[in-house]
């Protein structure tokens, strides 16, 4: 019995248990924000169940499942933010209307302090460097297109978080670094297509050499190209 079919039943069981426990936790929650976070956990359990199948097709299904889950989380969190704004405005204008059957409706949910001054949190300054460094290292270790994507996500995360804190890249810096990084990316493209990929077919006996060139150049190319997005200061 191979590993996938050995783990299949157990993975399905774990996914179902995680889902049911999250549902129980959601039913006990008072804060809407915690409900949203726990709902995201249910979606992770959904990914576990899909991943338990362990075939190529299941691998292709995980990505759309993840995207749909993220889209729903984004939509619901937007609604939550807007709802809280509307509620705050209603409280400020202080014309509380009587609702029909008010005594049968649920009580007001407890007050959650949402006015946190995020700029004063130490973790915002220390964590992005660490996470970005780990991702870039791991991407360099992976090589190839996947490694480039991981590396780029590290760069992207670091630059975006710098922009979010407030000490982002200035416009003059962008003009130079943009040209430099895109030039570097172009050279790496030439490396992986012309040297690596063509050499792979021309000299099949030295395949390992060209494979390493292709992998490293592709990682650097994708990493630098996607990292450009981070300097956009969206």
């Amino acid at each position, binding site marked *: 019995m191979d590993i996938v079919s050995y783990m*299949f039943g157990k993975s*399905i069981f774990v*996914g*179902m248990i995680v*889902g049911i426990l999250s*549902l129980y936790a*959601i039913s006990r929650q008072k804060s*809407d924000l915690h*409900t*949203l976070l726990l*709902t*995201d956990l*249910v*979606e992770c*359990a*959904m990914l576990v*169940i*899909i991943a*338990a*199948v362990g*075939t190529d*097709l*299941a691998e292709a*299904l995980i990505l*759309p*499942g993840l995207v*749909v*889950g993220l*889209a*729903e*989380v984004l*939509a*619901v969190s*937007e*609604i*939550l933010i*807007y*709802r809280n704004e*509307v*509620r705050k405005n*209603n409280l400020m204008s202080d014309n509380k209307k009587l609702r029909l059957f008010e005594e049968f409706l649920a009580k007001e949910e407890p007050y959650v302090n949402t006015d946190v001054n995020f700029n004063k949190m130490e973790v915002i300054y220390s964590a992005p460097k660490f996470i970005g460094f780990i991702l870039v290292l791991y991407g360099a270790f992976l090589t190839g297109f996947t490694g480039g994507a991981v590396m780029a996500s590290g760069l992207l995360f670091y630059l975006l978080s710098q922009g979010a804190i407030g000490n982002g890249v200035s416009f003059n810096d962008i003009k130079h670094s943009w040209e430099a990084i895109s030039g570097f990316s172009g050279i790496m493209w030439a490396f992986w297509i012309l040297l690596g990929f063509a050499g792979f077919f021309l000299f099949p006996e030295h395949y390992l050499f060209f494979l390493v060139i292709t992998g490293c150049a592709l990682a650097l190319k994708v990493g630098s190209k996607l990292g450009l997005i981070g300097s956009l200061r969206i």
Partner: protein
Amino acid sequence: MSLNIDSIAGVFYGYIPFGDIVFYFTEFSLIGFIIALFFTLVVYLTKPEKQLEFQIGDFGDKLNYVSLEELKIRRLMAIVCGICTAFAMLTGDLFDYALFLAVIGIANMGIVSAVKKEGVLSAAFYYGIIAMISTLPLFGASALILAKTGTLSILELAKNSHDLLFQKIIYAVGMVGETGIAPFYAAKAEMFRAPGAPYILMIHLSSLLIIVRTVEIMLNVH
């Protein structure tokens, strides 16, 4: 291609070999497709209502004004919802169908949440929570069907008997949470009385068509 789905879905007209995602045409799916597209067109062409609110115990009625921008967003969401419903009628792939359901769920959330009232936004939020929770049974059931039979194609699954009762029940539960429950939340927020009502009706129509289509799929896949 021999199929024994004729008895439920009507005459089989053919399919589009569109990679993995196969759209197929039967009498049933074509009728559903045309209905959904027709109502999408109706939603595109209709002008929204204006709403007049009584003041209880007071004189003077209040006209609820809805800005053009807000209406455009709601109409876009209604059209996305209609187009997704139309193509969910045609699709021949269980996972693809689940993805269409999820997109319809997001569009429904968009339609509901475009009304800037606290109660309506609350209902949209809770609907979103339910829709996100029910991705577990929906996608999980399609993964279980894939694990048991090795395929997700409705045309393939309709050929032989597979004993999929449990998976089909979970799939139906997921469908109910994702799209079928949407009218309840629309009604909970008294959406018919919310300004700019006609776009809300797309939620009801899509939910109705999706429930009928899911029953048809569940009967075909066996």
